[in-house]
């Protein structure tokens, strides 16, 4: 815990000024942009807001975004558990390197992530001609959105689990093993209960990023109206169409999601500290 137990003292001028400066930065730079989304979205009243949200194109974009999350988040949960189990329960040559490689997508910028997939599966790409010969088109379809979202968010769950499982050590699992439990029994009855909050937190972060990803998806989606527009792309489309109310309505859905993400983070951190 931080140094909370320091005795109460009279605040100096410097302290008050520093606190005010920090609060002002947070308010001006972070809180106002968040507030402006909701204020603009509801500016013309609840009725207009609802009609904007329920426009077919926006509803379709919401559906596509939810579908992408439903596909991508479970896959990356599976990958995260496997990778975390591997690097925290065994020692093997190249383990440190593997941990660094797992984190690579974090440092690849969104546009670059999209471009890499274009040069793998696109018509100009490595597998492009072969895919074309088979009559398969991946780029500019929902499959490309799934794939690039998998890339961008692959480290999220693993990164939450690895430090925790490292700290917990493998004693619980070994005890279960000596009692005759199988690998999957150990995973289900011992490991998962131990890591559930970190797992949930990682999944929530992963979900937030999948639903909000813009750059990578905009490269590979082809932005076919009514087909491959995810919600963030739809916001840009509406904004460029001078449909400000529609853009803010769509944005308010994602802004609400981010508030839920932050609330979940606060709750889960509280739980983790509580035990």
């Amino acid at each position, binding site marked *: 815990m931080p*140094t909370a137990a320091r005795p109460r003292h009279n605040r100096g001028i410097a302290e008050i000024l520093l606190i005010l400066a920090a609060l002002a930065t947070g308010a001006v730079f972070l809180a106002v942009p968040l507030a402006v*989304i909701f204020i603009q979205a509801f500016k013309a009243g609840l009725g207009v807001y609802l009609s904007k949200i329920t426009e077919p194109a926006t509803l379709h974009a919401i559906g596509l975004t939810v579908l992408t999350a439903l596909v991508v988040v479970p896959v990356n949960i599976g990958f995260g558990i496997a990778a975390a189990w591997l690097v925290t329960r065994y020692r093997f040559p190249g383990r440190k390197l593997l941990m660094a490689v797992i984190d690579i997508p974090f440092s690849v*910028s969104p546009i670059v992530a999209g471009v890499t997939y274009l040069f793998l599966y696109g018509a100009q790409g490595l597998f492009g001609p072969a895919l074309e010969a088979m009559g398969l088109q991946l780029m500019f379809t929902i499959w490309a959105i799934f794939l690039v979202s998998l890339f961008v968010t692959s480290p999220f769950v693993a990164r939450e689990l690895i430090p925790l499982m490292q700290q917990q050590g493998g004693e619980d699992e070994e005890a279960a093993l000596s009692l005759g439990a199988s690998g999957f029994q150990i995973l289900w009855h011992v490991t998962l209960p131990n890591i559930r909050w970190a797992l949930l937190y990682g999944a929530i972060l992963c979900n937030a990023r999948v639903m909000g990803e813009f750059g990578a998806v905009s490269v590979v989606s082809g932005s076919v109206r009514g087909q491959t527009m995810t919600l963030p792309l739809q916001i840009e489309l509406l904004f460029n169409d001078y449909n400000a109310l529609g853009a803010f309505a769509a944005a308010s859905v994602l802004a609400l999601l981010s508030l839920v993400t932050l609330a979940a983070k606060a709750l889960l951190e509280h739980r983790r500290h509580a035990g």
Partner: protein
Amino acid sequence: MSAPSRPARRHLLPGFGLTLGVTLVYIAVIVALPLVAMLFKTASLGWNDFWAIVTSPRSLAAFRITLTTAAMATAFNAVTGLLIAWVLVRYRFPGRRLLDGLVDLPFALPTAVAGLALVTVFARNGWFGQFLEPAGIKVAYAPLGIAVAMAFTSTPFVVRSVQPVLEEMQGEIEEAARSLGATRWQVFARVIWPTILPSFIAGSTLAFARSIGEFGAVVFIAGNLPMETEIVSLLIFIRLDEYDYPAAAALATVLLVAAFVLLFVTNALQLWQLRYADRR
């Protein structure tokens, strides 16, 4: 560290083969293969073509704009990040937990939403723009707007890097320094600052790396004029739209290499931080 060395020696637990297989195949297919495909494409250009693309006037302008605005954003985040981390750790005040939670907002808020919000408040008729533009400070559709968008999306890095180090600092060293007659400023300059410096630089490097690659928030506010407010990410996007795939590959490779260099720097700094922590 309580890293157990006992299960390390033998592969006691089942699942080594399975998790190794799943992890390696997944990384190979989802992460490595696309990166290799792009590098392959760039390599097929040859050095002369590559050089001609990345040194074309429009590319150079995009690099200059991206680097200067990212530097501005990082400088802003270095100062405000240090300030916020310091205040969050050292002081108790109303609104502290709210501020702490707000710091994570840029990671949770989709970049397109951030861009839309920022261009709205900084536009000529926006909440901030209506005061700034008459004063001669043009943010939206100007380089400053790019810097603002970058600064917003990379806000958490410096705060979250410095905060845990400040929290772990024991009060005893400071008290010892004070009892030896050091002034407050001397305590900060001689005791606190050297301790947080590696994490401060690491956080700033992460913020800089993120700013260089930022796209979603920037395209809304930048105005996107070639040679003036066009960042590298956007130029890549435009080249793709023009079916100029070699140019897109070359520029994306430059961004990728820059990201890896910065990642390497951050990791080296973290090792430095650990060594510092061990010495104490």
